[in-house]
Every structure is written in structure tokens, then in C-alpha cells.
């Protein structure tokens, strides 16, 4: 009797489990609206880069909301995943989006390490990965170069800001030397290499004693004053740097308190981009930096973008992170319009390759045909008061990268 009951119970339990699984599969398998497409947005909602992730989500949603929740005429079912601080959280979240939610495209992605790992998953499933922020130097996979067929970015390569500004810095310092300093991790090495390689090729001299950029421990360094005062002893004509997030705030505030305070500071634009600028306050005034976007650009697309951004209740100006994610939505909008019938990964990917010129707040750009990243203009900006808030005000165009 007891055995019978226990067998019965076990049978019931497995039946319930099976039913639950079936229900879940049915829910996940097809969106409620047969015409709707499901798109995955994977960004940091927690951790160090949560503010960047929130910006990217806001940018994507802004485009979606201002287009009636539809991209390419299809209703969009946006599923958001948390990237956290890197692959440890991002990979399971990406797997969930790909396998359970069966998204037709994955966008967002804050960190380079995340892109490096998730790119393998999306490529294997033939789902386009449309990154809107970091793009790493993809390492080879199993001895072969990475297959980038399904990989696209609306952002930039990490060494491009430095490449774009080197010529301008050279023209400003003449024969004077420039001190280069940045954080000791992949992003820092890429950003600084872009500058130092290009600058020395143009005949520029580095003030650093060994002729190489100085790297500070990351993320452990909070006190930059000793490094800055030491750098001042080399009597540089200018300083070039890249820091982002919390380190950028500490660096900028302490720069203004150091022996270097009267030496011009040039930087990759992330130093003063977004929420960090508010925290830096007046200490950031006058910093000249390079990025692919400035909220003060005067083109019509940017004015519409800024108006929608403010109307959505944002008090500070939009960032390059929000802009690139907004553009990712724009790319999907045009690509989805070009897909006939059912939307599949390969069909959507082919359509992304055909979007051509994208009208963007940063100015028009298009995908580089083999590397699948923007050919775009880079701008020199200066931190100034723009009305009541500090902003990265456009100074001049620098160059178009990658050079064609």
C-alpha cells in the first residue's frame, strides 16, 4: 500500500514537472503576437558599469518608444538581461536570451570581455550580435581567426579615440613632450596604444622617462596625486589619458589639485562622459577630449534625439553610450524592414549588411564591409558650461575612422 502510494506520488510529480516544462516551452517558443519579433538587450543593470548599462537601455527604449514600439513594421518584444560585471553573469544571461527566449538578435553589451565570450554563442546559433559599446580585439578561437559574419558594432574600436586626436595634440604641443597615463587593463592599453603609436609616428615625443605610457593599477588606484606629481617632474607640454567611471572622477578632481593643474589635459572622451562629469564638477572644465559624439552637434537627427531624450525626463545630456544603443535600434529598424516573411537570424543578418548609410545623431555613418563597425567622424570636444550643466561642447571635426 505504502509502495503504491509512493509510486503514485512519483508519477504525479513527474507528470506535473512535464506539464510545467511544456507550458514554459510553449510560453517561450512564440511571442503572443505572431508578427512580433523578440530582441534581446544584454546590458549591465548591476555592478561597476550599471550607469553605462542604464544609459544604453534608455537609448534603445527611446528609439523604440518614439517609433510606436515597432521596428521595421514589426511589433518588438524586448527582453532585457543583466550583464553584471562581466562574463560570469553575462554568459548565463546570454544563454537564457538565446535558448529560452529565442531572440532573433542580441544587442547592448557593455564590456569587451563579455563581447568576446558571447560572440562565440551568437555565432554558433547564427543570431546577429549588434554590440553598442565595447569591441575587443577578438582573440582567435581554436587556432582560427574569429568568424565575424554575425558580429556588428554601432560603436568604435578602443584604440580609435587616441588615433583620432593624436594629430591635433601634435599640432598643439609642437616640439613639446606629452605625458601618457592610463589604467592597467586591456581597455587602458588599447586606448593609450592608439594615441602613443600614432603620436610618435607623427614625430611626437613622450615625456614618460622610458618612452612608454605609465599604467596605474586598476581598479585599485584611488589616489592619483603621487603619480601626477611625479609626472609633473618630466615637465610635459600636455598630458593624454583615458579613464572611465569612478577612476575618471578621482583622476580629474586630483589632476586639478596636483602640480599638473596648469598643464593642458587631453583625453579619450569617456573621461568626462555622462554621469562622471556631474561628479567631477568644475574640476573638469577645459578638458579637451575626443569622441564620436557630442550632444551639441547641430545636425537634425541629433536635435530630434536631444528633444526626445529631454522629453523622456532625462536631466543630463545624452551620452555616446545612449546614442550608440539608439543607433542599434535604428539599424534593426531598417534591417527588419528589409526582411520578408518570418524573421530568422541569417535573414536578419543579411539585411543588416544591406542597411547602407545610417542617419544618426553623431552624423551619418555606415558599416565597414568586413569588420562590421562604423566608418564615422571623430570630434574634438571641450568641457564647458552649457546652460546650467557642464557639457562636452563640440570644438571641431577631427577625422574619419577607420580611414578608407
Amino acid at each position, binding site marked *: 500500500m505504502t509502495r503504491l502510494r509512493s509510486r503514485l506520488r512519483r508519477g504525479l510529480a513527474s507528470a506535473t514537472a512535464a506539464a510545467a516544462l511544456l507550458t514554459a516551452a510553449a510560453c517561450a517558443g512564440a511571442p503572443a503576437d505572431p508578427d512580433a519579433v523578440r530582441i534581446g538587450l544584454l546590458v549591465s543593470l*548591476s*555592478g*561597476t558599469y*550599471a*550607469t553605462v548599462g542604464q544609459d544604453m537601455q534608455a537609448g534603445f527604449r527611446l528609439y523604440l518608444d518614439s517609433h510606436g514600439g515597432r521596428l521595421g513594421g514589426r511589433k518588438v518584444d524586448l527582453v532585457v538581461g543583466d550583464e553584471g560585471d562581466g562574463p560570469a553573469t553575462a554568459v548565463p544571461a546570454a544563454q537564457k536570451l538565446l535558448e529560452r527566449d529565442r531572440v532573433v538578435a542580441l544587442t547592448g553589451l557593455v564590456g569587451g570581455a563579455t563581447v568576446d565570450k558571447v560572440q562565440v554563442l551568437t555565432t554558433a546559433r547564427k543570431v546577429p550580435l549588434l554590440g553598442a559599446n565595447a569591441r575587443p580585439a577578438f582573440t582567435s578561437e581554436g587556432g582560427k581567426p574569429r568568424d565575424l559574419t554575425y558580429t556588428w558594432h554601432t560603436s568604435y574600436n578602443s584604440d580609435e579615440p587616441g588615433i583620432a586626436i593624436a594629430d591635433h595634440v601634435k599640432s598643439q604641443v609642437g616640439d613639446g613632450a606629452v605625458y601618457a597615463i592610463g589604467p*592597467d587593463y586591456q581597455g587602458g592599453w588599447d586606448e593609450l596604444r592608439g594615441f602613443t603609436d600614432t603620436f610618435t609616428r607623427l614625430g611626437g615625443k613622450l615625456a614618460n622617462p622610458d618612452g612608454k605610457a*605609465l599604467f*596605474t*593599477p586598476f*581598479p*585599485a*588606484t*584611488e*589616489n592619483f*596625486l*603621487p*603619480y601626477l*606629481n*611625479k609626472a609633473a*617632474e618630466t615637465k610635459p607640454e600636455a598630458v593624454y589619458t583615458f579613464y572611465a*567611471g*569612478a577612476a575618471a*572622477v*578621482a583622476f580629474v*578632481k*586630483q589632476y586639478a*589639485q*596636483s*602640480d599638473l*593643474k596648469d598643464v593642458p589635459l587631453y583625453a579619450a572622451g569617456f573621461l568626462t562622459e555622462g*554621469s562622471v562629469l556631474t*561628479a567631477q564638477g568644475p574640476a573638469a572644465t577645459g578638458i579637451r577630449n575626443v569622441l564620436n559624439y557630442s550632444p551639441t552637434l547641430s545636425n537634425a537627427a541629433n536635435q530630434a534625439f536631444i528633444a526626445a531624450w529631454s522629453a523622456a525626463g532625462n536631466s543630463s545630456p545624452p551620452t555616446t553610450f545612449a546614442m550608440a544603443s539608439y543607433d542599434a535600434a535604428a539599424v534593426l529598424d531598417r534591417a527588419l524592414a528589409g526582411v520578408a516573411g518570418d524573421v530568422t537570424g541569417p535573414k536578419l543578418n543579411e539585411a543588416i549588411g544591406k542597411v547602407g548609410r545610417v542617419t544618426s545623431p553623431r552624423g551619418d555613418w555606415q558599416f565597414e564591409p568586413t569588420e562590421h563597425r562604423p566608418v564615422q567622424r571623430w570630434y574634438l570636444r571641450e568641457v564647458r558650461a552649457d546652460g546650467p550643466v557642464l557639457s562636452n561642447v563640440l570644438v571641431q571635426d577631427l577625422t574619419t575612422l577607420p580611414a578608407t
Partner: protein
Amino acid sequence: MDTYLIPGLDGIAYGLLLAIAAAGLTLAFGAGGVLNLAHGTLIAAGGYVAATTSTGTWPSLAAAVTAATVVGAAGGGVLAAATARLRGRGHLDQALLTFGIALIGADLLTTVFGADIRRPRLPAALDTTLTIAGHPYPADRLAALTAAVIITTIGYAVLHRTRAGRLIRATVDDRHMVAGIGVNPRAVDTTVLVVSGALAGLAGALCTPILGVGPATAPTTLLLSLVIVVCGGLGSVPGAVVAAIGVGLVQTIGVITIPALAPYLLLSAMALLLLTRRRPLPGMPG
């Protein structure tokens, strides 16, 4: 010489701030036998409270420092109540409990204050630089250095010249004897944890203008405090002060003298000290 003047000053300022933070940790361990892994969370809590209270006026700055100290003391009280029941069950149980409290506390702080790094707004007189021997030096750091010197002096006087201080030191040395003279050592434990929390909160408040406070503050300050406590000798306040100034100098002069080793310098210095140390540091129980 001139090269090392400002970093040296900076190192001492930073070291004394760390000493205030670590003094509480070393006392709680020495007297109460409590290995408090939530110490960094109390420092961060003090920092957040100070950063949100100070609005750029002198009264708000005073309120910020007071509020941070009170919050730290309250946190110390909670920890005292939580660890009281674990007495006699060894350090591992305490470590597990306080570590759990630290994780929950860190999550609560991020939920309430967000993931951004926060800095207090200071009165204009502090938000500027002074000139020392021809070099600019931030006024807020000088103020923190002064405050740290005053607090360290008061702390020393209390510990060595008052009955309460003597009781605490006696409990570190021999809690049974303290019980023997009619004082409940558990009352001393609780007091030490509350004072230790207050010092943590105060240190958090004094550090925020310089370093800011964010999600990384709690683990970083806990690690630095542990390094100081280990190097200075468990339970020794003078040892902690000496070790803290050492840590401060390694983090300022050391990293610019040998930049290539900067990430490893602090822990290598600690390992070297522990391997070669024959004599205890001043004030350390032999």
C-alpha cells in the same frame, strides 16, 4: 627630497585615516575576540551618510561627520548583539556571520545609494588647494590629516589615561582577570564594538572627500584594515598606527618609486615584513 615631500605628507595623511579605521578592528579582535569582516561595510556606510549629508556648508559638514559616527556606532551595536550569541564558537562562525552581514549590508547600501561613486560637497574653503613648499596640496586632505592627528591623540589618551581605556587594554591582555575585578568583560566587548563602529563611520566620513565612496569601498577598506591589523599585531593600537602609516607610505611613495610593481607592492611588503620580523612592533604583545 622635494620629490618625496608631497607624497610623504600624503602617505601620512592616508595612513592616519586608515589607522582610525583599523584601530577599531584591532581592538574588537584583541578585546572581544571578534573577527569583524563587516568592518569595511561600516566604513562605507559612514562614507555614504557623510557624502549625502554634506551640502557644502560648515553646519552640514559637522552634521555629516556626526551622523556618520552615529551610524557607525549603531552598526557596531548591531554587530555586538549579533556576535554575542556566538561567543565560544570560534572565529570561523563569527567570520561567517559578519561576512554575511557585510554582503547584505553592501547590497543594502547599493540599493539605497546606487552604484555610483559619491563624494560630499565641501565648504569652499576646503575645496581648494594650499601651497606647501611650492607645491599645491588639496586643503581637504590637510584638514583630514589634522583631524586624524587629533583623533589619534585623543584615542591614545583615552586608551592610556582613563579607566575605560585601561579596562579595554586589560581585557585584551587577560579577560579572566578583568572578570575577577568585578567587571563584566562582555560589557567591555560591546563597548569596544560600538566604539569600533563609531571610529569606522568617522574614518569613512573623513575619507570620502578624498577617495569617494562606492560599491568597492567596503572590500578595499576591509582588506587594508586587515593588512594593517596583521602587520601591526592583533590587538595593538600603536602597532596599527605604525603599520597604517607604513601602508600609507607604500601606497604613495612606493608606487611612484617602483611603478612596475605597483599592484603587488603592498602585499609583498606585508609578506616581507611578516617573514623577516623578529621583534614585535612597538606596543605589540610579545
